[in-house]
């Protein structure tokens, strides 16, 4: 073990100004610091927040009940605007999920070390977000109790689903996405659950973590298989995450509605998804790292990187906007052109400009390194981006529908209390789930932290030897 002080960075150390890990910690220190919150009774704030969350979830259940028993007519939807809040929320939640998979899978493949501290948050977020998303396609059906007709099963009707419809693709995509995310998350979690088991202070905790960790004993044989399996899952999740939002975007791109019928949607949706996802990760991570006192593993470096991702994806989204409207004009298609014009100056114009501000304007803050690490700025910006991205989806769905080909059937859409309750309710449910996650699950992968520490030590060791060698770096 190296005993040298890592705070004295060797020259040319890429991690110089923002270290990946703050301070040198022993393996046991990691276990204790990262499990501290799990093993200690929750504080007052936690309970308060949970209270809020549960209250919101109650509202959600009421709204769901009303939707199921009275009918989807309790929503504000109409003809022409047959899809509205429901699908907007669906797309928004699904998009948010994408950050998790991106961080945990893609960054893993790219060997980005900084993912280790945040991937568990992100993945948990993915799970809850996709769960929320999954609600809406079911609820928005006219006859939800017939949902199983979307699945090909040998029925006595001899009738099958119609696989040209993007909705059947959705089922497959979202289902797969949820399952794979869950497996990926759990596989990564097992070793840490073992740690939780072994550091548990009460027999009860020990028992449950014992069950959850399935008898993990850190055997080298297991580690070897585990690592392969984890990589494989990452490898599968990576194209999956791209495919999911692509398919979601097909819901619109495949239709011929002006404002939907465009080829830019798949990349534009994926970028937007990552964009909103990272925004939400930041929204949650910034308070969480303080509350959990884990700044030593979630360092300014992580915030800085995420801010950069935000800016990058923000630009991709901006490019999407430009493309969309440029081609509307370039196509010289009167319907497309009118749709664009309506977006700029029509009844929904204020929303449109707000969206442009949130999704294109705000990320430009992150040109300034100082702002990238300023938690307050970062947090507010992230919030704005979340709002902006929801607005974007709302505009795509509703604004396009409300003005299509025959002016005679144009009509506006007004959300009802049920619409709002479902949106707010899912947010509350998401929050509740996240609180429980913080309380019961190691928030950061300890095994990875330890491994990472070992690597950092090694690299410093190596560099120091270089530095001391005569004729080395000045």
């Amino acid at each position, binding site marked *: 073990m190296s005993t040298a002080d890592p705070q004295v960075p060797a020259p040319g150390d890429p991690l110089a100004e923002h270290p990946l890990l703050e301070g040198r910690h022993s393996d046991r220190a990691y276990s204790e610091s990262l499990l501290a919150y799990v093993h200690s009774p929750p504080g007052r704030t936690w309970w308060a927040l949970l209270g809020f969350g549960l209250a919101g979830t109650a509202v959600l259940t009421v709204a769901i009940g009303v939707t*199921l*028993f*009275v*009918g*989807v*007519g*309790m929503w*504000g*939807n*109409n*003809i*022409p605007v*047959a*899809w509205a809040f429901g699908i907007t929320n669906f797309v928004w939640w699904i998009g948010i999920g994408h950050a998790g998979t991106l961080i945990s899978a893609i960054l893993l493949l790219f060997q980005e070390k900084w993912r280790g501290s945040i991937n568990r948050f992100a993945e948990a977020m993915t799970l809850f977000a996709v769960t929320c998303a999954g609600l809406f396609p079911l609820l*928005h*059906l*006219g*006859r*939800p*109790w*017939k*949902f*199983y*007709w*979307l699945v090909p099963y040998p029925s006595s009707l001899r*009738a*099958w*689903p*119609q696989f*040209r*419809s*993007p*909705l*059947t693709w959705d*089922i497959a995509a979202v289902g797969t996405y949820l399952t794979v995310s869950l497996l990926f998350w759990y596989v990564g979690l097992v070793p840490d659950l073992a740690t939780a088991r072994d550091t548990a202070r009460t027999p009860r905790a020990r028992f449950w973590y014992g069950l959850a960790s399935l008898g993990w004993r850190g055997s080298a044989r297991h580690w070897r298989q585990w690592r392969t399996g984890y990589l494989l899952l990452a490898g599968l999740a990576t194209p999956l995450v791209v495919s999911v939002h692509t398919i979601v975007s097909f*819901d619109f791109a*495949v*239709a*011929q*509605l002006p404002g939907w019928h465009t080829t830019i949607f798949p990349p534009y949706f994926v970028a937007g998804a990552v964009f909103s996802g990272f925004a939400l990760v930041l929204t949650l991570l910034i308070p969480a790292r303080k509350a959990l006192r884990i700044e030593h593993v979630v360092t300014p470096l992580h915030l800085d990187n995420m801010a950069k991702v935000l800016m990058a994806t923000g630009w991709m989204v901006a490019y999407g906007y430009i493309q969309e409207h440029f081609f509307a004009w370039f196509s010289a298609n*009167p*319907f497309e052109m*009118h749709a664009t014009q309506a977006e700029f100056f029509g009844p929904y114009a204020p929303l449109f400009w707000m969206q442009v501000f949130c999704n294109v304007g705000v990320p430009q803050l992150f040109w300034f390194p100082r702002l990238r690490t300023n938690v307050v700025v970062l947090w507010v910006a992230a919030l704005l981006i979340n709002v902006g991205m929801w607005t974007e989806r709302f505009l795509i769905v509703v604004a396009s*529908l409300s003005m*299509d*080909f*025959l*002016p*005679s*059937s*144009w*009509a*506006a859409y*007004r959300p009802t209390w049920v619409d709002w309750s479902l949106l707010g309710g899912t947010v509350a449910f998401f929050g509740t789930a996240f609180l429980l996650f913080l309380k019961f699950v190691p928030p950061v992968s300890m095994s990875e932290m330890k491994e990472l520490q070992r690597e950092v030590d090694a690299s410093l060791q190596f560099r120091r030897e270089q530095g001391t060698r005569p004729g080395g770096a000045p």
Partner: protein
Amino acid sequence: MPLLTDPARTDAPDAPATEPVRAWRSLEEWHAGGPGPEAVSREHPPGAMLPPEGVARRTFLQLATASLAAAGFSGCFRQPPEKILPYSTPPEGLTPGVPLHFATGLEWSGRTVGLVVESHEGRPTKVEGNPLHPASLGAAGVFEQAALLGLYDPARAKTARLQGVEAAWSTVRDALRKQAERQDGGAGLRFLVEPTGSPLVQALYARIQQRFPYARIIPCGVALADGRREGTRLAYGRVLDVVHDVGRAVVVAVDDDFLATTQPGHLRAARDFVSARKPEAMNRLWVAESTLTLTGGFADERLRMRPSQGVALMLALAAEVGGGISGSTGANAPVGPVPGPNEGGAGARAPAAPSRAAPAEGGPGPRVTETLAAKLAQLRVPATALTDAQRAWVRGAARDLLAHRGQGRVTVGPRQPPLVHELAFAVDEALGNTPRLLEPVAFPDEGPEALNLLMAELFDGRVDTLIITAWNPAWTMTVDSNFTRNLERAPFRLYHGLHEDETAARCPTFVPATHPFESWRDGRAPDGTASVLQPLIAPLFPGAVSEVELLSVFAGLESQSPYELLKSLWRERSGAPLDFEARWETWLADGVIPGTQAPPARAVLDEAAVVQDALEVAGLASLRIVQDAPDLRAEARASHLSKAPEGLELSLVLDSRLYDGRFAGNAWLQELPDPVTKLTWDNAALLSPATARALSLEKGDVARLEVLGQAVEVPVLVLPGQPDDTVTLALGHGRERVGPVGQGVGVNAYPLRSRYMPWGGGLGSITRTGRHQALALTQEHWSMEGRQLALQLAQAAFRAKPQALQPLQEDGERLYPPAALLKSDRHQWAMAIDLHRCTGCSACMVACQAENNVPVVGRDGVLKSREMHWLRIDRYFLGDPDDPGFITQPVACVHCEAAPCEYVCPVNATVHSDEGLNQMVYNRCIGTRYCSNNCPYKVRRFNYLEYQQREPLTRLRQNPDVTVRSRGVMEKCTYCVQRIERARTVARSAHRDVREGEVLTACQQACPTEAITFGDLRAPESRVRREHEDPRHYKLLNTLGTRPRTVHLVRLKNPAPKGGA
């Protein structure tokens, strides 16, 4: 075949005819709580009454708490236990499952429209036109069709009252008998009735008059304030009927909306007019009107005028025409007052002295023409009375009329004062366009003045017994007649009505009326043709009594049933031939009694009087409009009662959907959009954009209208094409006692109506209340945004370049292999909608609603834009927003061959049939609504909530051939596939194929102008094929490559050549 006989009695003459009564026992027993709902819900093919999935749904609701999936499964295995209730004795000629069609008819405002009603196991389910009837020619209007819903209206009155206490009809009848035994010759006996053309009822009146010489029978009803009626009296010396024969080369309509659903005989008028408007040889329509109407939308030259300008306009027209005629005789030396400098054409072409007339071919003898023309030519209109535009219009119209002597028609709306009509007749006579006059068909033929007398009598307590059979006078009477208060002074007042309405509330004695489809009667078409109106069903509420039954008590004929009375009446009318029974059967089956048209009236125009009246008015310094005056001499008296409207002017109209309010309880009509404003469930004060701007009022602002101390607060609707400074408001809304449907919907405009201004006049004031009210419009956006959707071309332009439509006719390129549909050996159903023939009357919408069990969604539903009409009529304005034209375009599912809705449905709930139908499978639909999103025509409708009414009574009406859709299911036009399949079953069972004309869609059938064509595109001779190949056809949104099976044909216009004559 033998048909229904008097339902109330089983001892009716011909035995077999009594069967349906027994058939209906089950239903009556059901009313009595016997075994019933099953009786009606079974005994016909499946798909009738229970909602599809209804069971699955309820099961779901029970089990949902347990688990959604489980519930989904349960319910779909077993059908719930059901009963079959066969007839005890089968009605003759009825095979369960096969609908019967009965010829009958419906009378309102004294005129009858012949109808054919479809009946399933004794339940009338659909009203269609009677092709043999002159007033229908196979078409049925909105009122006739919607009347069916009124039959099954749960809010109908059920029990009789005698002096405030519930009583059986028999008790009331005894009381009436006592009344009838009076010895005073009926001095205090008065009947308040609606004018009727029914020979039977008229015979009963005569009989009553015989028994009670001093009794009086007084007509009542909004439509009585009819300038045309008075006009005939002034012009021809006695009241005559005028037949709207608008099938002429030139039609000049002054404030006359002859296509309006509210005009008796509009079905025939529409057919005549459109038939004379062949695209290759078009007639020309000149319309000057005081609000935007369907007729105005059809006009080639439309002019906005204030209601009060009718007189001036007609004077000018008369002068022009007169001048034209006598001018053409080459006379010179103008006589009479010299035209003022700023007087337009009226003076420009100087009138000629009476001289030898040029014999106008087809016209009457030279004498009339020449002298009359000369006299007319002397008429003058003060410069201030007309704008230049109006003068120009007058000149043009006159030129056109002169160019087509004997083939023109000048027609004036009933809301215009008598003088205008009088002059119109004169002009027509002068031009040789002999007006078609008949001896009055309806009785009593007195005008509103009779009412004034009755009011006086009531006030003096000279009336002891008042029998009211007219519809709801307490509602329709003008406020200043004090009817409601005077009514109280009649000790015995009986109201005979369908509902416990506002009048019933004021009449201690009440007798529930039978619905027209429940009772025997007869009636006469506008042209006098008589027909027997037979009942379709025994009274649903046993207490109900028909008008004939009621009157026969006073006529002392109650021993005979209406059926017997009717039959004996016609036996003697037809001279009691030996083969009477046979004839009778034929009349019943045909719905027409041949050879009963009224002969043309022998009437000669009283030129002197006409010209005298005209000069009097024209001579007056300022024009004053006096309506509802028996003669012009009354003008002086009237003039200070109604001030000549300067400033804002109020124009009251009959509602295109509720008429005078009698249909306010009818959900179909309440939800039917007004053809022009697209307003449902409400009425609104119509303002022109300019006026609205001036008053700083906007759509939905509630304004307060005041006239002579009376005020109503009503939301404003800005209507392009409305004349400036004119507020148009529909009567008939805001009913107070009408049952759940119409209760307090809209605003009651009757308070603004007075005896001397029955159709409005000067508007005291209009002020904003600051309140706002959302208006349930089915079409918010009025412009086509420059898109080529509803097309209208000038005839000349089209003739010059018929291939101009090419780009709208071809289908877009397609990546997929071409659909082999048209090559297949199956039928290929298709539709064509000719905008050139579509007047926008909306009969098709009601027909569709009735045929396909389309639910209503109520005012809130429309406000949420969730209306369910499968067939909608889009209305777009063209040109100058202040003075636009407008065009109506019926749009239903166009059954695209490459349907965008189909490939997005995840469960194959909407797919294509081998006959080119875009099929909608309700029971497969799970309600993703993706199909609607991807439908560029937005013709799909979604059951956002449980819209279907499930009361047993309303279920009776539903078409058993069409699935009743439940909540959460998408629906849309099916090309009436149930009719196709019916026809196919019959044809194929006879081992042949369906023939051209065997399948009529409901909309096609109802259309008065035959604007909708349906048939097999592959049949070489089919009309639909011809229209699909017509150079006027185009495919809506064809650039999207949807390949619609329904094509539209452009509307042509025939504007007058601009500039010189």
